[in-house]
């Protein structure tokens, strides 16, 4: 297990692709790991304290990582626990393993992820589990659980996997969605525009587009794109 703590409050954002693979390396190697601090390339050891405890494949990020982007990018196994907030693009392209965020998550949580699990105890912002701009397919597998609220564009272009939001969500949930499940325990705004498949379950209130038809299964659409997606309450 590797414990990483910020040495100071950061003035600009850091881009650091921290994955559980680091826990397999020696502390010296980890300190030399290259990260971007603003537009400068620096060593991880300059910005963070690194402590190693035991050999399990686990990262504990102890402190506020709200300005650290790309944590858990492309990780395949192991575990990351963030004791505070986490920055944008957390868990991007992730294929396996587990990320637990005890604070809030920024935009682009779990974009294009294909497997694994992300749990956020606080709130998440926009674009959870969606496709990177211009790409055709968003999240294809795995599970994202957000205990608080989430922003707009949840599961855009989603093609598999599951997103669970225990609080409320914003507008444009499941836009251009093709497969997978989105479950919202609170309320949300507009849902399922240009949806082709998949299922969106909502407990609270939501705004429905006029392009969905009522059936036994729930609201089916989006008729605009001859979609067969389902929106229902539970």
């Amino acid at each position, binding site marked *: 297990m590797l414990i990483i703590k910020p040495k100071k409050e950061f003035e600009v954002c850091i881009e650091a692709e921290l994955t559980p693979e680091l826990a397999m390396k020696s502390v010296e190697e980890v300190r030399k790991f290259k990260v971007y601090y603003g537009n400068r390339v620096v060593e991880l050891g300059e910005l963070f304290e690194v402590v190693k405890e035991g050999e399990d494949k686990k990262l504990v990020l102890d402190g506020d990582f709200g300005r650290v982007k790309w944590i858990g990018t492309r990780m395949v196994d192991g575990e990351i626990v963030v004791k505070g907030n986490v920055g944008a693009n957390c868990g991007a392209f992730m294929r396996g393993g587990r990320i637990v965020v005890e604070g809030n998550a920024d935009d682009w949580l779990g974009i294009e992820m294909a497997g694994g699990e992300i749990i956020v105890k606080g709130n998440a912002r926009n674009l959870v589990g969606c496709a*990177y*701009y*211009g*790409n055709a397919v968003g999240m294809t597998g795995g599970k994202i659980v957000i205990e608080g609220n989430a922003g707009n564009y949840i599961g855009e272009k989603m093609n598999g996997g599951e997103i669970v939001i225990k609080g409320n969500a914003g507008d444009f949930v499941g836009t251009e969605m093709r497969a997978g499940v989105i479950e919202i325990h609170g309320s949300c705004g507009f849902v399922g525009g240009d949806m082709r498949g998949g299922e969106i379950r909502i407990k609270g209130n939501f705004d429905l587009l006029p392009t969905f038809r009522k059936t036994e299964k729930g609201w089916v659409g989006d008729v605009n794109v001859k979609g067969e997606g389902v929106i229902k309450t539970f």
Partner: protein
Amino acid sequence: MLWIKNGIVVDPKNKINAEKMDIFVKNGKIVAESDVKKEDCKIIDASGKLVVAGGVDMHAHIAGSKINTGRTMRPEEMRVVRNIAGKFRATLGRVLLTAPAIGYEYAKMGYTTSFEAAQPPIGALHTHEELDSIPMIDKGALPVFGNWHLVFKCIEEKNLEKLKALVAWAIERTKGFGVKVVNPGGVEAWMYGGNVKSLDDQVPGFNVTPREIITWLIRANEELGLPHSVHLHCNNLGVPGNYQTTIESIKLANGFRNPKRQVLHVTHVQFNAYAGSSWRDAASGAAEIAKVVNSMDNVTIDMGAAIFGHATAMTGDAPFQFSLHKLIGARWSNKDTEVETGAGIVPIGYLPSNPVHSLQWAIGLELGLLVDSNKVVLTTDYPNGGPFTEYPYVMAMLMSKKMREGELKKVHQYVQKTTTLPSIDTEKTLYEVIHMTRSLPAKVLGLENKGHLGVGADADIAIYNLNPLETDFSNEFEKVYKSFKTAEYTIKGGEIITKNGELVKEVFGKTFWVDARKKVDLEVIMPDIKEYFNYYSVQLGNYGVEERWLKNPSRLEVV
């Protein structure tokens, strides 16, 4: 001064076919041996290497609002980093490249001239600003005329003097090079949600037909004696069965004659060479088109070959772009350019497993193989058919039947029945392929100093690590492809700009533009232009591009 020693030169314009000779360069021009002091020359040893003129791309979309909108709507194209800023500029792009990347990639491949093929007249300033951001190569732009209300008005009145004056005025104002016609009448019909289906459909709101637009513009172009002929993107592009429209359009050149060049250039014919009635039974009409082109001596075409992989369809043909968007379901952007023209952009990818894409791929090659080498220019209509960086693939394919057989196995077998490609035995020679990429496009554009290595030509030279005397072009296609992909040296205006694919020096090429104002009386058209400017979003005084705004303009005066 440069002395390129012992190279094996292929220069079709000067009838030199793989002869060992020396080339001398002074002040950016190719000169005779007696004009240089040999001891002052920098010597490039080209023994056993192919020395040819720098490539000329006569039809690509490299600048202006279309490619820029394409870049905006395709952020995924911008994730390939080609060059990190340092001595040279940062460049990005997969197929849609940033402006400096276009210059750098052309130069690495040994190309030194490229023309933007469709410039909306009112967007001229944008086009030229972007052309001025493209380093390394010489450039030019063709303004579009085929859907301009003013053009329709002159043709309705059957007033050739007015039309000539308008063409001369517009080419000067836009700092353009020639007359481009995109889906004549069709884009105007698109303003009302329609299109024209044949050469004799009336354009909505005007008493003209596509047939009249094309013939009148050819007539005006020939009377003005512009360096380039009318450059036509035919009606019905991308519609199965359209090869008949293309043949009819080509035949409109009958009756016109110009001793120096063709009178009609039909562009990216691959997209206009489909037989059949729908995409379910589409087939190739390339053989019929080739027969017609070969029988006429005043028409040239370019291939518009499709390359498997990513591409972006962007043309001034707005109705076609909408039908493409409906057909494949990809993103779509439409542009309406006031009373002049329109455009559309749709991302596309060509897949070998798709029967239609395989058909398009095969038709492009069929055109290259079946049409006389003196009448067909190698293009991919960048970025519509694919990246220009894959020209070497097309060159190698034209020269090797064995390579084509190998590639035919990898594509959808639909092409076996619907095209003649599997039965074509022709293998173009290196001489012919160099002609199709250098001297022919330069001749078609009317650029006398480009595309050849004769004394007086611009010193745009490409040296490839390929010995034509020892290469078996039929069998060693991989080597041929690799050699043409990266020039050992690219020389632009007498300076070495790339070496083995590494950038050496950044230079800025010329922007060619044509001034034909002396041939006409502009006063005959000015009252009409002034009246039409009531409908423009800009004032007449603010319209167009001044020569002094361009970085490196080169005026070709028509007298």
